[in-house]
Each structure stands twice: as structure tokens, then as C-alpha cells.
């Protein structure tokens, strides 16, 4: 069976482990040492590289989960479900890093840990949606129904998250838009030098590779979990 191949960890995954470790180490060096200190905000601005990268990976992971869910509903195959759960969990962790680092940055810059800005609220609501997703899955015993309901809820969530952003956006935002055009009322806006841009892009790449590695591990874990359930059923009958 295909499950047999799970027994051994693939060599490319081990290589990816090492590669992501090196990339993230390099990114840490770039962010903390290489990039210049921003003149107005000072050292705290350095958190921005990882903050934006984590947000990016979290967002991509959630979008990937929604896409996998959609495919699952059209063509129910367990692999899409395993992928979707893995992507949701990875997305939850990265979004949390995104929110936490953002909060640390906001303390000196906005003079508060938290504000009810559209981006902050949307990120938080997205976390809640996918926490609810995991709770829903926990409550359903039949594996096929669990996968189906999970997929439906992920799609409902991804339909409502953009609306959440818009509904709050109608009021003004103070979150800086570093990439693209900023709004005049944003606080903590800054112009990036070319070394900053390089550091940011490098962090994006490093975090994307790290995210992919973690996702792969989580998918493997998902299949191993399936295997355990199957073996347990064969051994004791339920």
C-alpha cells in the first residue's frame, strides 16, 4: 500500500530540514545585523521582516487549505483532506507569530499592544475561524463526514474573512501599508532602502521554505495518524 512508503522519512525531507534551518539562520542574521536600523522607529522595526514573512506564509497556508477543501468537495479524495488540515494548522501557527510580532512592534510605535484595526481584527478572526474548524472536526466521528464538514466550513470561512476585512475597513485604518501605496493616516510608515528590501525578500523566501517543510512534516503526520487508525481497527475492531 501507499502507506508503506511512510515508514521511512524521505531523504528530500531531511535535506529540506537542513536547508530551511540554514535559510532561517541567514534571514535572522540579515534582519538583526545586515539591515540598517530604521531612523525613526529604531531597532524594533527589525521585527517587521519576520512579521511580514509569517503573515505571508499564514495567508498562503489558509488559501491553500481553502483550495484543497474545494477540490475535496468536487473530488473527494482523502489526500486533499490530509493536506487541508495540515495547511490549517501551519496557517494557525504562522498567523499567531504574525499577530504576536505585530503586537510587540505596535507597543512602542502605536503606543499600545493592540488596536481594532481592520488588518489586526481580520487576522484574529481568521485564527478564530480555523480554531473553530479544528473544533468542528473533533466533534465528528465518521472520517468522511469529518472531511466533508471541514471542507465546507473552510470555504464558508474563506468567504467571510474578506467581508470581515471590508466591513471594518469602512472605518479608517492606521496600519501602515509598506508595500504598495499607504494611507495618509497610517502610523509607522517608512521608506525601505535597498538592503531592507533584500532582507525582506530573503525572509519571505526563508519563511516560505520553512513553511513548506513544516507542512510536509504535518502531512506525513496526518498519513501516519490514518495508518494508526487503520491498524487499531484491524487489531481491536473499532
Amino acid at each position, binding site marked *: 500500500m501507499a502507506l508503506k512508503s511512510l515508514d521511512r522519512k524521505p531523504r528530500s525531507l531531511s535535506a529540506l530540514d537542513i536547508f530551511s534551518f540554514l535559510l532561517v539562520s541567514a534571514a535572522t542574521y540579515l534582519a538583526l545585523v545586515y539591515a540598517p536600523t530604521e531612523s525613526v522607529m529604531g531597532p524594533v522595526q527589525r521585527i517587521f521582516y519576520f512579521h511580514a514573512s509569517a503573515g505571508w506564509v499564514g495567508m498562503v497556508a489558509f488559501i491553500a487549505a481553502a483550495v484543497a477543501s474545494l477540490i475535496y468537495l468536487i473530488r473527494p479524495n482523502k489526500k486533499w483532506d490530509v493536506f487541508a488540515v495540515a495547511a490549517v494548522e501551519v496557517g494557525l501557527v504562522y498567523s499567531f507569530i504574525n499577530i504576536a510580532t505585530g503586537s510587540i512592534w505596535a507597543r512602542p510605535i502605536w503606543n499600545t499592544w493592540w488596536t481594532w484595526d481592520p488588518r489586526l481584527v481580520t487576522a484574529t478572526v481568521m485564527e478564530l475561524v480555523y480554531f473553530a474548524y479544528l473544533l468542528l472536526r473533533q466533534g465528528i466521528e*465518521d472520517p468522511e463526514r469529518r472531511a466533508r464538514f471541514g471542507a465546507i466550513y473552510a470555504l464558508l470561512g474563506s468567504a467571510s474573512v474578506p467581508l470581515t476585512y471590508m466591513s471594518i475597513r469602512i472605518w479608517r485604518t492606521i496600519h501602515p501599508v509598506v508595500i504598495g501605496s499607504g494611507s495618509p493616516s497610517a502610523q509607522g510608515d517608512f521608506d525601505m532602502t535597498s538592503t531592507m528590501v533584500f532582507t525582506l525578500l530573503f525572509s519571505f523566501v526563508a519563511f516560505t521554505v520553512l513553511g513548506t517543510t513544516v507542512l510536509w512534516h504535518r502531512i506525513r503526520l496526518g498519513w501516519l495518524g490514518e495508518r494508526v*487508525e*487503520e491498524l487499531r*481497527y484491524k487489531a481491536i475492531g473499532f
Partner: protein
Amino acid sequence: MISVSGLSKRYGYRLVLRDLDLRVGRGEIVALLGPNGAGKSTLLRILATLSHPTFGQVEIAGLSLPIHAASARGLLGYLGHQPLLYEDLTAEQNLHFFARLYLIPRARKRVDELLDLVGLESRRTEQARAFSRGMQQRLGIARAILHKPKILLLDEPHSGLDKSGAEMMDKLLRETAKKGNTILFATHDQHRALALAKRIEVLAGGSLVSLGRKLSVAQLSAQYDRAQRANG
């Protein structure tokens, strides 16, 4: 009227039905026997479009499921372990609701007729909550045959019924089949299965063993046990 081939149903890792074939023709009464948990209810639920097969083809009156499920439902009457009624509504309201759902013409007359048939005409304005198990079962059968289905799928239809109720049920099944309708019913009562059915199917180990009708109860018992051993 019912044609099933290669049907399998899996719940998680448990295979309830395994590569099962079944044909039931027009006007036939077929009894479905098997121990608890053999999958009788699952099979009936799949035929009633309430559950989906994992593998295999199911056709109801030439309509293949699940694509034509909505049209097939109009031809099916199903009675499960639950009478599928609303306890807060009266007997009459329950039937009127289902009559509207099935778009039954001259519903009032049909409902009166059925209440009379199942012996509930004197309690028609009582809430189903106040009914005993047997009375709920009577109301349940009235609901199942409301739209004069061509195919009746009954899961232990006699359960909870008293003697007169069971006789009513037997008579109803015989008359329904005589009009050319098809009946498949699950039961644990071997005597009743022999008395009513033209053919007996035993569900064991997820698939069916077909037994003829001209059997004594003792023969049926012996064959039933043999089928269980062979497939289980």
C-alpha cells in the same frame, strides 16, 4: 424494480456491506433476515436514498442513484426504526404536512382514508407525543404509504405493533404487493418472513444469501445458521 450490483458500504474502516447484489421484481415481497448489526438497516437506507454507497450501482425503477435520487424518492416509501414524525404535531397535521411535501392531490381525502386504514381515526387530533410506540408505528406506516409508492422499504415494520396492528400490517403488505408494488422488509421474525415473502434473503458478513420460499421454519433456521457461518 430494485436492482443492486456490487454494493459496498464502509463506515470509517468498517465494511458493513460487501460487494452485494440484489434484484427485486415487480409485485414481489422479499424478506431480509440477519442478526443485529448485519447491515439490514444500512441496506434499506441506501435503497431509500438516505445513505450513499461507497461503491456499486443502485437502480430504483430504472433510475440510477444518486443522480436520479430526487425522482426515485417519489416512488419510494420508507419506514425505519423511527416513525419520522413530529411529536408536537397531531396525527392529522403530520400527515397533512407530508401530503403537502409530496404534492398529493385531494390530500384531505387521502389522509382520512389512511387514518381509517391504520386505525387512528378516533385519535387524529391528538399530538403524536401522546401516542404509544405501536400507535406511532401505525402513523409511521401511514406516512410511508401516503403517496402510494411503487416500492416499499420497511425496517422491522411489525415492531411495537399489537396483534391487530400486526394483522393490519400483514394485510396491507399483501394487498400492496397484489397491486403490483414491490416490497422489501427487514425482520427478525422467521415465521412472518415465511408467511409473507416470496423469497428470503439472509444478510451475513456483508453480503446476501438467497433462500427460496418453500421452507419449513426448521429448514429456514438451519439454512439461516449455515449462511451465517459461511459468510461470517
